[in-house]
Every structure is written in C-alpha cells, then in structure tokens.
C-alpha cells in the first residue's frame, strides 16, 4: 500500500464534490497516474543508499574520499537571528564559493527548529541543515528526523568530548557542533573586591552586600529552573540518568547527592537570598545587575552583549567550589548543525554541516557572535583566551556536563523545577520533594514506552 499525499486527496474531494453537485465528471483517470510519480523522495533515497551501503561500520572512510555530491544540489539552512544569522550567511557564501552549491539561509530559532522539523521534515519543507540545541538529539533521532553524522571519525577527533557526547544518541553521532555554552558567575567589577573561590566566601561577600530595604542583593540565580539547579547536584556527584545520562531507568534525582544539593539550595535561600522563587525572574535579576544592585549573578554568555550595552564593568568566573571542594557541574548546551533525514541532498547537506563546524568557520562564529568554539584546535587560540567572558565560561566548561539528550529528559524539567521551587519556598523536606519528583518522572517515562 502506498502513501497518498494530501494534494491528491483534496483533488479527490473536489472531484467528488463536482460530481455530486453537477452530476458530471471531468478527466479523472490521469489522476491516479500522478500518485506514483509524486513520491518525490524515492529517487533521491535510492541514489543515497547506493553510496552508503559499504560504510556502515566506519563512516570515516567516506570522509577521506571525495563524497559523491548530488548534482544540482541546493540547500536551505535554518539558523538563529541577529549575529548568528550574519554568521550563517557568511558560511553560506563561503560554501557556495568553494563548492558551487547555492545555499539559502532562513531564520528559524534553534530552539524552535526541532519542533518545526517534526511537521516540515516529512512534508519536504524542512531545511536541509539546521541549528538545534543538542538536548533534542535523542528526540529527533528516535523520531527519525535527522541523519547520522557522515564524518563522525573526523568530528570526534576535532571537537571537545562534551560536544561529541551531546550530539550522540544510542552510540551514534548525529550533530556537527558549532558552539558550546554554559553558565558562570557574572560579577560586577566595580562592586566586588574579589572573586569568591568557594561558596563560603561568596556567602560572606553577599551577606555584607545584602540590603533588601534598598533592593540590593549579593547573589541571585534563577531558582526552580533545573538548568541552573542541576549544577549543585552535579557538584555533589549526582546525576540525572545513569550510565552517562543514557539510561532512563536509572534516575539519580533523589540520591544522597541530590538531597545535599537541595539542602545547599535551601541554605542559599535562608542565608543570602530570602526571596520567593516566583519573584526572582530573569528580567528582574538582569535589571538589578545592570543597575549595580546585584553583586554576583549566575548567567550565561548570551547575556554578555546586553551587559556590555548597558555600560557595565563586569567579569565572568567559574562557579565557586562547594564545601566538598568540587566545582558545581553546570549543564552545558551544545549548538550543533543537524542534517534533515528527509533532505534530497544528504551528501551536500552533510558536507555543508561539516564545513560550518570547521576551524575557520568556528573562529568566524566566535568573532561575530562571541560564542565559545567546540574545536580542540581553537581552545588555546589567543583571541579567544583574551576575551574575558569567553575565558570565564571556558573555565567553567571544564566542569560542565552536557544536558542529557535522551527523549526522557523532557519529562525531567517540570517536576524537578517544582521540587526545587517547593524546597526553596516552603519548609518541605528536600528528600520528600525529590522523591515525589522522581515518582512523577518515572510515571511519565513509563507512559512514554
């Protein structure tokens, strides 16, 4: 049984309508002939299966050979707006110069791209190559929306481990990493005498600065956003999923480490930040920091441009050490290019994605957007090391863990945010709150099967 497309179905409706209404029929037999030819994807996938048959084991071989680029290929790319869009256009131009393949860049935000691809991909409307956050890798791979990385050996050698872990699912690499980001401790250089090495120091500095009557606060972070909350769990040695964040049946969210982290978060609330969770919004935290009413602020490199525009004299440092002597293990996000599984030009698209992850392009991305490269050969590049924001983030990145990218992670955010909110706001037993959250997540995962 073959699939019939929608266009054809609407024609059927029209035809029958015409029949019912006017009791006369037009040419219809040529209609069914259309269906066969309409399955446009068939021809390109056939071609594709030919040149990939042999290299299932080591796709690296394909990288060294000259890939068979589809003739007449033209690519559509989705990337973020503003500076990133500028960079994407630069890459497109350079790629066209080098390979003679025309590329169009469209603005689809990388956080929206996976969702959009779900409908646009199978319909043949999706971009051939698109930017996405790595934590959607599992969802996209299990829904069959993305192609494997055709140059995995090459990419694995050239990029930092976190970028590879983040872009892999079920032992296969999918992503072509272009940037990595995590959060660090932003501090106001005009107000801070020193950068705290440990949380104990930070507590003391913050207490000295705190002046709630004048809305002055020593420290703030977005509580109840598990993206940030996790850093403490990670710092105490906890984890989300077992086996390197790949085993959904092993949830580490109510472990001893997690309870310790929750108690620590509660301590932050009690000692230096006695404000309800709902009242610490990103906007408020941001404006206080810009007004010089906030000393230390956990935030990511995306906020740097805004602070610079506000004329703020700020620096970025890694998160201070916990009382066990470890740095909090922040979540890191990897922005990667992915190749749409429904692309007509898989080889050309993969080549483009590889090209965007190359050394020159990543360096250019850093220059235009200030985002941290993932390539090993750029990690000690002097231009990057001299950037105060990036170097601070890079310091923290050593301790960072890529966000889990298995589909089950989507069930974790809500309940964990609730648990940390309750621990922060109410006098609820941390262990109890985390047990509840874990139960909810287990239920939801069971429902996913």
């Amino acid at each position: 049984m073959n699939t019939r497309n929608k266009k054809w179905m609407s024609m059927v409706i029209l035809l029958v309508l015409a029949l019912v209404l006017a009791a006369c029929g037009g040419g219809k037999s040529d209609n069914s002939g259309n269906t066969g030819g309409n399955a446009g994807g068939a021809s390109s996938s056939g071609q594709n299966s030919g040149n990939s048959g042999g290299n299932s084991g080591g796709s690296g071989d394909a990288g060294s050979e000259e890939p068979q680029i589809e003739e007449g290929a033209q690519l559509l790319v989705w990337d973020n707006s503003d500076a990133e869009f500028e960079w994407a256009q630069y890459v497109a131009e350079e790629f066209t110069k080098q390979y003679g393949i025309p590329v169009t860049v469209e603005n689809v935000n990388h956080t929206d791209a996976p969702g959009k691809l779900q409908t646009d991909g199978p319909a043949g409307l999706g971009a051939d190559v698109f930017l996405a956050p790595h934590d959607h890798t599992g969802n996209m791979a299990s829904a069959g929306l993305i192609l494997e990385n055709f140059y995995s050996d090459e990419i694995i050698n050239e990029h930092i481990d976190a970028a590879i872990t983040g872009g892999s699912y079920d032992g296969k690499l999918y992503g072509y990493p272009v940037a990595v980001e995590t959060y660090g401790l932003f501090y106001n250089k005009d107000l801070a005498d020193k950068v705290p090495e440990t949380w104990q120091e930070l507590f003391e500095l913050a207490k000295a600065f705190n002046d709630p009557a004048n809305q002055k606060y020593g420290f703030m972070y977005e509580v109840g956003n598990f993206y940030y909350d996790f850093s403490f769990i990670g710092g105490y040695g906890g984890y989300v999923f077992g086996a390197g964040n790949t085993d959904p049946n092993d949830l580490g969210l109510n472990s001893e480490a997690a309870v310790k982290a929750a108690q620590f978060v509660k301590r932050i609330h009690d000692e230096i930040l006695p404000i309800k969770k709902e009242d610490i919004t990103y906007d408020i935290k941001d404006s206080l920091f810009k007004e010089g009413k906030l000393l230390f602020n956990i935030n990511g490199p995306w906020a740097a441009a805004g602070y610079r525009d506000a004329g703020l004299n700020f620096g970025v440092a890694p998160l201070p050490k916990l009382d066990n002597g470890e740095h909090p293990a922040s979540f890191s996000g990897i922005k990667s290019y992915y190749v749409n599984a429904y692309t007509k030009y898989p080889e050309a698209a993969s080549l483009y994605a590889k090209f965007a992850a190359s050394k020159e392009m990543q360096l250019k991305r850093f220059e235009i957007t200030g985002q941290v490269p993932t390539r090993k050969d750029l990690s000690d590049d002097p231009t990057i090391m001299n950037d105060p924001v990036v170097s601070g983030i890079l310091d923290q990145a050593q301790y960072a863990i890529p966000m889990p990218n298995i589909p089950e992670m989507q069930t974790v955010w809500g309940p964990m945010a609730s648990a940390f909110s309750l621990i922060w706001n109410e006098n609820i037993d941390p262990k109890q709150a985390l047990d509840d959250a874990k139960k909810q997540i287990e239920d939801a995962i069971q429902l996913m099967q």
Partner: protein
Amino acid sequence: MVVHLNGKRHARTGALLSLLFMGLGQIYNRQFVKGLLYALLELYVVIFWSKPFAEAMRGLITLGESVQQRNARGAIVVQGDHSIILMITGIIFALLFVMFLAVYALGIRDAYKVGEARDKGEKPRGFAQSVLHAWEQGFAYILLTPAFVFALFTIMLPLIFGILIAFTNYSGPNHLPPKNLVDWVGFETFTSLIRFRAWSKTFVGVLTWTVIWAVLATFTTYFIGLFYALLLNHRVVKFKKFWRTLLILPWAVPGVISLLIFRNLFNGEFGPINQYLKLMGLQAIPWFSDPLWAKVAIVFVNIWFGFPYWMALMSGVLTNIDRELYEAAEIDGANGFQRFRSITLPLILFSTAPLLIMSFAHNFNNFNMIYLFTSGGPANPAYSYAGSTDILISWIYKLTLEQNKFNMASVVSIFIFIVVAGFSIWNFRRTRAFKEEDMVQ
C-alpha cells in the same frame, strides 16, 4: 402499456431496482437520462473508487503496515506508511462514502416516488422537466449543499480526527510517524489517565480550579462591566465619551504585552503593588508564591482585561431601552433601585445572557491568561506536570507540546469538550433569550 391503477407495484419495483443498482429504478420508470446518469455515477464510483476506498478503509483499520526503512546512515530507503495521513485519508473516504450513500438513498427515494406517481397514472417527467422540478422544489437544499459539504470537511473531519487520536498511541518519542507506525490502542490512554494516581489526582484538582476560574472570571467581568456601564450612562456623569474611551483601552491593548507588565507589577518582592503596600505600612502579599493569592491575582487581572467588553456591550443595550418604561415606573412611584431591578437588569440579562455562556467557554480555555501571567505557578507538590493555577488547557500544553503526548492531549480535550458543550447546551436551553417569547412579561 398496462397501467396499474391500484397497488404500489411501480413504486416498490422502482425502489427495489434502484436498491439493486443505481438508476435501474429510474430506467424502469422510463426516465432514461436520469437513470443513465445515476447508473454512470455508480459505475464510475465502483470502477474507479472501490479499490482506493478499500485501501483507505484498510489504512484506517490497520493504520499502516509497512514500516519506514532506512539504510545504515539513517537515510530513508523505503518511505513506509504514514499512519496519520492514512487515518485522515480513511476518514475522508468514510465521509465521502456516507455522502455517496446519501445520494444512493435519494435515488431509491426518487424511484419510489416516481413509481408511486406512475401507480396513480401520472406520466413520469422528462429529464428537462426533472431538472427544473428539482431546481424549483429543492432550491434551498441545492444552495445549502456546498455549505454542508464544506462543514463536513472543515468541522467534522478535524473533530473526528481529534477524537480518534485518543484511541491511538500517537505520542513521542516512539510512536511518531512517518518513522514509526501508530496503532490503535482502544481505551488504554483513558485508563492510563486514571491508573496513574498522580495523574488522576492532578486531573481532578486542575478541573476543579478550571471550573471555579471560569465561573469567577465570567461573573466578575460581567458585573463590573455592568457597574461601569450604569455609571457611564447616569445622567450626572460628564464627558461620557472621554470616560468610555479611557475605560475601553485595556481591551484594545494586546493582552500578551499587558500580561507581561502585570507580571512585573505583581512581583512579590520588587513589584510596585507590594512596594506601595509596604509604604502604607501593610504586609506585602505573596502574589505569585501563595496558591490562593496567585488565584486572586489572576481573577483580578482578568477583570481588568474583561470588563471593557461587557461595559461597551451593555452601554449599547442601555441606550436602547425605551425611556418611557422608566417614566411610567417613576409615575408608579418606583425608586431608583426598583427601576434598576425590574427594568434595566432583566433587559440587559435578556440581551447578554447568550454571550455570557460564550464567555464562560472562552474563560474555560483561557490559555493566555494563565500561561503568560503565572505559568501555572506556584508549584504544587500534589500535582504532576501542573502548578496550582494551571487550568486544563495549560496543563495539556505542558503535557503535550513539551512531551509530544498527542493521545493524552486528545483524551483531555475530549473531556473539556464534553464539559464545555454540556454546560453550554444546558445553559442555552435555560436561557430565556433563546425562547421565542415576548421579552418582557
């Protein structure tokens, strides 16, 4: 030709023949062109459409059998069946089949009627006459047909599709077409909603608040709108137009923007509202962190958004009330309150009650208000994937868009549909405005 004056021989035979094959009855009744057209229609449908129809039904029943195949690098080799498209195709063919059956039935009825006429000794109409007759007698139906067909495919089709989804396992990440096939699972999704205790507990809690919210939101805006309308229409109020323009503004400003501003205004620590409360020596109110206060804040902000609509509407109604009614009441010695109770209020209720029901349905599904203002917060330890102020629709959003649980969403929306539809029907039936009676008894 022998004419049978008694009995219904022609009628029965015609109908039976038409039942056997479209058009036979007409031909038997000597309406050859019409009969031939009917016969051609059936022939056409049987020859060209029986196979697609059988395939579509098979698709609807199996939801696809061939799984998408991929090569080692993930590229698609065999497209495979797309369960959701198969399902939609199946529904379309089923609807078309129902339409075809309707035409079939009409043919039988026609053969019967013409046969009946022949039994009475009338001569059957010629083709041109038949067309003219149909045009004159069935003009209304002919005009309504396009609208009906349009409604069938734009209203019925999505509804049926949405309901059928509830009986499948269409959900992320393992049952998303076209890579994977979707299967019928019967009532499994319904039972799993009940089986997981945390979920059913969330459901009941969220539902309760949704109903309370919809009632509160509707009535507060309604009566405050009424209050302002009365105020504006009072004769001592000067600059009526100015006040009216001013008060309608909240309705004109895009809600998304105002809600974000309100979010900051109500901030428990830094928001101006609590700052003023503190200045006046009062306690700051935990607007967003206390479930009860969060609900109060939502209802309060909703009044700001909702009352201008009612105010504008009721002002219109008020100006249309016959002044003589008031004059007569005054002569009878009715005081202000009595005049309001016996003249103004019934007349306003009469003309706005239907809208009140619509407004209830709207508030029941008022996603923006909840999601943009509190995002469902504060957290509720007893709920799963919902906060204390989440209503059904925002809970569905969190459940599905963040997790692709389309089947679960469908189950909950079926429930929302039943509640809203039930409530609306019950109300519509009770509202006097819909009864064709004299408005003032």
